[in-house]
């Protein structure tokens, strides 16, 4: 089988799930005839018709709320945010209504909210964000953020089948830049399980999404230049976090670097550090360190964006510091 891109993998998952289950349908801005701002849903309308591929008004509250209502009735809506940044517009209905519906009212919200996330693409402050932290912080939501084409497909299929709301972050830098070979058959990847992206002995990098690739690049270089054996953990699911995988790598290498593209303060690295402290403090030979974006809105001009976001060289430098600690 030929390799397909991360973006095509997502599209395949949508096609397969819509074929498999008539309750699955898609909603979003410009997802029908136009196929979505990034063409993720291209072809869906022709195949499944206007009833199941719905172009909506520019109304993130409306779309997310309608998905919840449809979910209550047994449908499995998959809604697209044109950019994941616009989750902010639906923050109330997602965190207050959707996240709590099962708990306070025994109403299921089997729904997926997906969309392009992340930077490195000169998108400026409103088309580059990584707003996962606010949602990982919300009990009742699940959050998935794949780094590979295989995981993009397998996790989206699992998300659509999940009985709760899953926020599915797609990294737009990866859309057409990476490819993968899809396993044959009904390929799903379980939500809540991290992946060892590279085995190593000397230190661990825990990361997800775009920075998985930077971590792998750094690991390669560190192996060559420093003879360091670096383990890279791709979290894949951010809520619920795979605590076992995190503790296992800490106890194996005793040195941990957390890398994420999101800004530093209040980003996920803090949560992971706390969990490591609680369960594996005695295994630490060095402080848990983190490489993240700087705490500023993401600027647009290339030298600025490149400066603000974490780069491979940053990971290398931090890893060396950690190894030498």
């Amino acid at each position, binding site marked *: 089988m030929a390799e397909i891109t991360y973006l095509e993998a997502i599209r395949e998952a949508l096609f397969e799930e819509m074929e498999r289950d008539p309750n699955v*349908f898609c909603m979003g801005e410009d997802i029908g005839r136009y196929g979505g701002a990034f063409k993720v849903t291209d072809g869906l309308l022709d195949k499944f018709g206007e*009833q*199941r591929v*719905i172009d*909506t*008004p520019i*109304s*993130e*509250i*409306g*779309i*997310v*709320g*309608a*998905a*919840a*209502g*449809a*979910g*209550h*009735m*047994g*449908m499995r*809506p998959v809604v697209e945010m044109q950019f994941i940044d616009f989750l902010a517009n639906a923050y*109330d*209905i997602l965190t*207050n*209504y959707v996240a*709590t519906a*099962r*708990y*306070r*009212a*025994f*109403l*299921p919200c089997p729904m997926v909210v997906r969309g392009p996330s992340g930077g490195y693409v000169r998108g400026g402050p409103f088309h580059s964000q990584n707003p996962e932290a606010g949602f990982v912080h919300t*009990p*009742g939501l*699940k959050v998935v953020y794949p780094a590979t084409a295989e995981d993009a497909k397998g996790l989206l299929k699992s998300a659509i089948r*999940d*009985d*709760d709301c899953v926020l599915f972050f797609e990294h737009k830098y990866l859309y057409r830049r990476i490819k993968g070979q899809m396993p044959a058959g009904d390929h799903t990847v379980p939500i809540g399980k991290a992946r060892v992206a590279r085995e190593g*002995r*000397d230190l661990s990098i825990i990361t997800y999404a775009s920075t998985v690739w930077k971590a792998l690049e750094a690991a390669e270089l560190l192996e060559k230049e420093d003879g360091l*054996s670096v383990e890279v953990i791709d979290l894949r699911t951010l809520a619920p976090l795979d605590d076992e995988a995190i503790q296992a790598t800490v*106890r*194996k*290498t*005793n040195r941990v670097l957390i890398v994420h593209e999101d800004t530093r303060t209040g980003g996920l690295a803090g949560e992971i550090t706390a969990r490591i402290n*609680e*369960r*594996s*403090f*005695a*295994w630490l*030979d060095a402080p848990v360190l983190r490489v993240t974006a700087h705490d500023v809105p993401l600027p647009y001009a290339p030298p600025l964006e490149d400066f603000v976001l974490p780069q491979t060289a940053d990971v290398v430098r931090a890893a060396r510091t950690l190894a030498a600690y």
Partner: protein
Amino acid sequence: MRLTRTLEERLVALYRQTKVVGGLFRSLGQEADAVGSAYALERRDILSPLIRNLGAMLVKGATPLEILRQYMAKGDSPTRGRELNIHFGDTERGFIGQISPLGDMVPVMAGVTLTFKMRGEDRVGLVYVGDGATSTGAFHEGINFAAVQRCPLVVIVENNGYAYSTPIAKQTAARQFVDKALGYGVPGEQADGNDVLAVYDATKRAVDRARRGEGVTLLELMTYRRKGHAEHDNQSYVPDGEIDRWARENDPVDRYIARLVGEFSFTKTDLEAVDDRVSREVDEATDLAEQSGPPEALDALTGVYAEPPSAEPLWFREGTGGVVDRHERAEGWGTYSAIEEH
């Protein structure tokens, strides 16, 4: 309406005895709009009530016992003590529980009724919003979405004159809320919300329209909130005499009784029979409700997700057993080879 009013009066008594946990919200003077509109639906239809639509919930089959247990935070209340006052629902009986952030139920009901349409089901939805809630983005996005999709949805603006202390002149510059219909491209209608039969008729027209596939209707029901926002609110912001005038001249129960007697030749005995039945029902429910106990603390951790069904108590909590002992990192542990051996 009688049941709504009697039940609320009972709740006031329980509130004064501090048996109600938290605030108490009344619909005194607004019973007709809730009851009349809910009767216009069929069993299979779904409505989403507001805090002041106790009457609509009762029509849809909510029981006084459920209401009392919920207000008293009992373990066998419909939400097992998770939610307060009348925030609960039952899709089987056809009502979906409310949520505090105002307006959010409009898009949710757009999705419920979109589903009816997608599945070709002969069902209709009804969502209530207060005059104040019309100012929210959620209301706007939800009704617009439903209008474009021609969802079988009736949107009732329950205009009771106030949003908490805020009079409608500070809520909107529009002369009336029904004027918003045009901007969403849907039919609008205004009705006397204190005339239960007029409410029924207007709602029925809107419901029929929805059932015929003609989409959304915006219905404004004119009523008046005679009590404060909640029991603690002393209504000092209300002009003198306004409440009395509504109580005297425009009480929905009085008006309905007058019609029952005048037009439908109900007798005093008939009416007393209704009152008796209602009192008995509420008495019995109160007795039962008082017997229930509070929820089990551990139940607080269940049901956030379908999977896992429950969270674990945190380690520092008495009785969990799991305290964080000093970690044991065996000698030599922490090198790659050491872990290989384990």
